[in-house]
């Protein structure tokens, strides 16, 4: 006897409620997976994280900061694959610990940026009027100050005034916190303007009027109705800002005002190499290459996310 199979959808759902379909997040992930360049760079980015955080199991921090001046400026060898620096420290170990700092600075600075940027942008865009005018004039004021100038002043002022902190078994010098705050506090205006523009457009939608007609409080309209609809531009800006923050850290450290030695960062490792650009290129080549790869891969991932989070494109 032949039986007719019920359609799969009914069978899966037990006849009651059909299974949840692909959420916008799952749709985005499908689109992202099809973006080959972004996927390749996402893998590279993961490898860079594994390198920086996994490498800690191979070399200790004490080893990264151990100096033996009899072994200074040695070119790459089996004992020191990336060579040694001006006071005989192992560059491979230092790029590992420096990478931790650089990546952490990149991520945490962007978290600071996200909190401030989203809050200011959302309030200005949603409420409009005088609040909008005040917040946006403030934002523009921050934007007009040259970023590097502000970074240097604040770095100079705060250095040495913040105590060290210990996190996950590693002690970070206070200068790391300072750098994170400085980068976070100077990078939010761009995000705030993007978020505000999104809010201005979205709040005119009927679904917002419907929520207001239902009595939904403003806080819920902002955070549950509008904010989820601005996720695409926020995620893209945030990823690109991670790259920006890593570069900012590198150039503040390069100018000698960033994270202070012996704590290594990719940026301050390059600082130490300025006098040996031709004589000992391994000093700047390896940290420079790592910065390049990180920033490049983050930018490509950001590009892929921008395409993936656009709801108008559909996975085939």
């Amino acid at each position, binding site marked *: 006897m032949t039986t007719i199979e019920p359609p799969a959808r009914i069978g899966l*759902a037990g006849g009651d409620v059909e299974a*949840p379909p692909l959420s*916008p997040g799952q749709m985005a992930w499908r689109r992202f997976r099809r973006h080959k360049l972004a996927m390749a760079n996402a893998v590279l980015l993961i490898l860079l994280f594994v390198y920086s955080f996994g490498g800690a199991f191979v070399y200790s921090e004490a080893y990264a900061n151990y100096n033996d001046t009899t072994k200074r400026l040695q070119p790459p060898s089996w004992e020191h694959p990336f060579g040694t620096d001006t006071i005989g420290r192992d560059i491979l170990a230092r790029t590992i610990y420096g990478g931790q700092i650089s990546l952490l600075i990149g991520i945490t600075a962007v978290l600071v940026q996200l909190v401030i940027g989203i809050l200011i942008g959302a309030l200005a865009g949603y409420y409009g009027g005088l609040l909008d005018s005040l917040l946006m004039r403030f934002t523009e004021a921050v934007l007009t100050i040259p970023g590097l100038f502000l970074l240097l002043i604040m770095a100079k002022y705060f250095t040495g005034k913040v105590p060290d902190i210990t996190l996950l078994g590693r002690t970070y010098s206070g200068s790391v916190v300072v750098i994170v705050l400085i980068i976070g506090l100077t990078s939010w205006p761009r995000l705030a303007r993007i978020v505000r523009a999104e809010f201005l457009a979205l709040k005119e939608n009927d679904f917002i009027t*419907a929520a207001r007609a239902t009595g939904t409080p403003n806080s819920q309209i902002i955070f549950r109705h509008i904010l989820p609809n601005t996720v695409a531009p926020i995620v893209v800006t945030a990823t690109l800002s991670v790259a920006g923050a890593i570069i900012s850290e590198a150039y503040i450290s390069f100018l000698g005002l960033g994270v202070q030695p012996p704590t290594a960062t990719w940026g301050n490792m390059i600082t130490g190499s300025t006098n040996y650009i031709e004589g000992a290129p391994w000093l700047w080549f390896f940290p420079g290459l790592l910065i390049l790869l990180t920033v490049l891969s983050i930018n490509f991932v950001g590009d892929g996310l921008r395409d993936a989070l656009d709801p108008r494109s559909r996975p085939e």
Partner: protein
Amino acid sequence: METNEPLVRVRNLKKHFPIRRGIVFERTVGIVQAVDGVSYDIYRGETLGLVGESGCGKSTIGRTMLGLYPPTAGSVNIAGIEVTTARGAQMRLLRRKAQMIFQDPFASLNPRWTVSAIVGEPLRIHNLEPDRQRRDERVKELLELVGLSGRHVNRFPHEFSGGQRQRIGIARALASNPDFIVCDEPIAALDVSIQAQVVNLLEDLQTQLGLTYLFIAHDLSMVRHICDRVAVMYLGGLVELAASDVLYEHPLHPYTQALLSAVPVADPKVARKRQRIVLQGDVPSPINPPPGCRFHTRCPIAQPHCAQVVPEWRQAQPDHWVACHEVEPKQGF
């Protein structure tokens, strides 16, 4: 049908939007008189149609009535709640008892929420079904009430057609058991075949649930079909209000007459015999509306005093309101 008890009472409602210029220090450079002094009642269980050209202030009336725009002047009373001054618990009650259905079925549903979250929102906000599971059950009931499958609760709006999305919007409006629903051109964005379905659904729901509608539209034949009484609006003010059949058969105001003569008739013989009243000129700007009767600039029967004296909103015949100097009141009334 209507009893003699008004559920909604609107008196001299005004909504002016200032036009502002300047950064931080704003100054008002003009005022759009979107709604300027309208008065009417809506009886319990009836459908009041509100028709008029684009931009005449129809939607603004609907939204101001629900307190979504603060009114400039006047009063709105819905089921005993004074909308213009309601706060706190009164306001929450109003938000439950008065709801709204929108024109654009694509903009009126949050694209990132599931149907379950959208229709369940009023239940959640008003704490009508605090239990998650009970709430989902209620959402399924509501979807079935509007002719959708309760199995689709986990879908997103983009997985539905325009007509289905409009039904979701109606289900959301019904969730909090309202008495009064403002239907802001609910069928204007739909295909003709779907329009009839949605209109029939709205009528069925009205009978089943005893709803009262303010039906904003510009499709005059559809309005005649669904509405018990019809109000005609021109440039921010009401010009005529009467029972549908009376208004369509014996319009008193020259604007209403012109408007109705523009409705296409399916029978070519009738259409050829009909006299089409074509109005001259354009609708004046609501920023600087004409003095006196707002319609005098285009009115075929305008007299000199029409440009000076604002016509009174009065009953020319029992329950037939009109704002025109030239309409004679019925004898003995």
